[in-house]
C-alpha cells in the first residue's frame, strides 16, 4: 500500500505546557501512590512477527501536585501526560522525534507499554506486557 504523499509537517509542540493541564480525575484520586515501578517481561514486535521475553523497567513519579508525571527509565527522564480514567491510568510520552510511548496500567497492576518511534527512517513499533506496582 504505497503512501508517498503522506508527509506530516508540523514540529513537536510544547509538551510540558500541555502536560500541566492534565492529571486530575478519579484514577489519580484512587491511585494514591506517589511512585509506580513498572516491569515488563514480554515484548512483541509485529513488523518482525515475533514475541520474546524482555526486561524493561522504569519508574513513574506521579507528582500529583504539579500534575506532570515523570517517567524514569533506561533512556533517561521523560515528562508524560496523564490520562486518568475510572478503571485504568494511561500515560503518553512525546518523544523528540515526534514518536510516542504510551503506558496503561490497571488498579490491579496489569500493564501494557507501547512504543511508536523511528529507528533511523524505519518505524519500529513494540509492545511490552507486564505490571506496574505502586510504592511509597
Amino acid at each position: 500500500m504505497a503512501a508517498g504523499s503522506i508527509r506530516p509537517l508540523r514540529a513537536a509542540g510544547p509538551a510540558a505546557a500541555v502536560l500541566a493541564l492534565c492529571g486530575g480525575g478519579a484514577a489519580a484520586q484512587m491511585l494514591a501512590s506517589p511512585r509506580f515501578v513498572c516491569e515488563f517481561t514480554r515484548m512483541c514486535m509485529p513488523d518482525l512477527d515475533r514475541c520474546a521475553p524482555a526486561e524493561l523497567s522504569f519508574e513513574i513519579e506521579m507528582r500529583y501536585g504539579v500534575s506532570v508525571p515523570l517517567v524514569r527509565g533506561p533512556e533517561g527522564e521523560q515528562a508524560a501526560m496523564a490520562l486518568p480514567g475510572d478503571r485504568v491510568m494511561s500515560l503518553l510520552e512525546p518523544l523528540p522525534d515526534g514518536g510516542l510511548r504510551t503506558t496503561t496500567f490497571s488498579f490491579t497492576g496489569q500493564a501494557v507499554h507501547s512504543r511508536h518511534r523511528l529507528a533511523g527512517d524505519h518505524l519500529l513499533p513494540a509492545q511490552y506486557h507486564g505490571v506496574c506496582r505502586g510504592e511509597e
Partner: protein
Amino acid sequence: MTLVRSALALLLLSAPAAAESLRCGFDRVCDAEGCRSTSFELRLDWEGEDGRFTDGAGRSGDVTVAEMEAFWHFIEIMERGDLVLTSVAEGGVAVHSKHALLGGKLAPTQYHGACRRSGD
C-alpha cells in the same frame, strides 16, 4: 475528559483546518497469543485536531489528532482510561496499538501496516 482532549489538542500548535482522510490496512498483529497475519482496515478522517475513525468491523468514534515531526498520531481515549493509539509515519507506515479493557482486564494488541491518502 474534555480537559484531556483540549490539552491533547494543544500539542497541535496552529493546525491547518483542511479536511484530510487516510485509509489504512494492517496485515500483522501481535497480542497475548503471539503474532500472526491479519486483515484489519481503518479509515481516519480529520480536520485540525478533531477526527473520526471507522474500522472494518463497523466500529467508529472520535479521535484527537496530533501531528508531530514525522508522525501523525490519532488517539482514542475512553472514559475508563484505556486508549487506542494509531501512528502514521512519513511515507505511510503505520502502527495501531490497543490498550483496551475487555472483561475487566487489559487486552493489549498491536497491528502493523500502512496508510494512504483517500483517493490515491
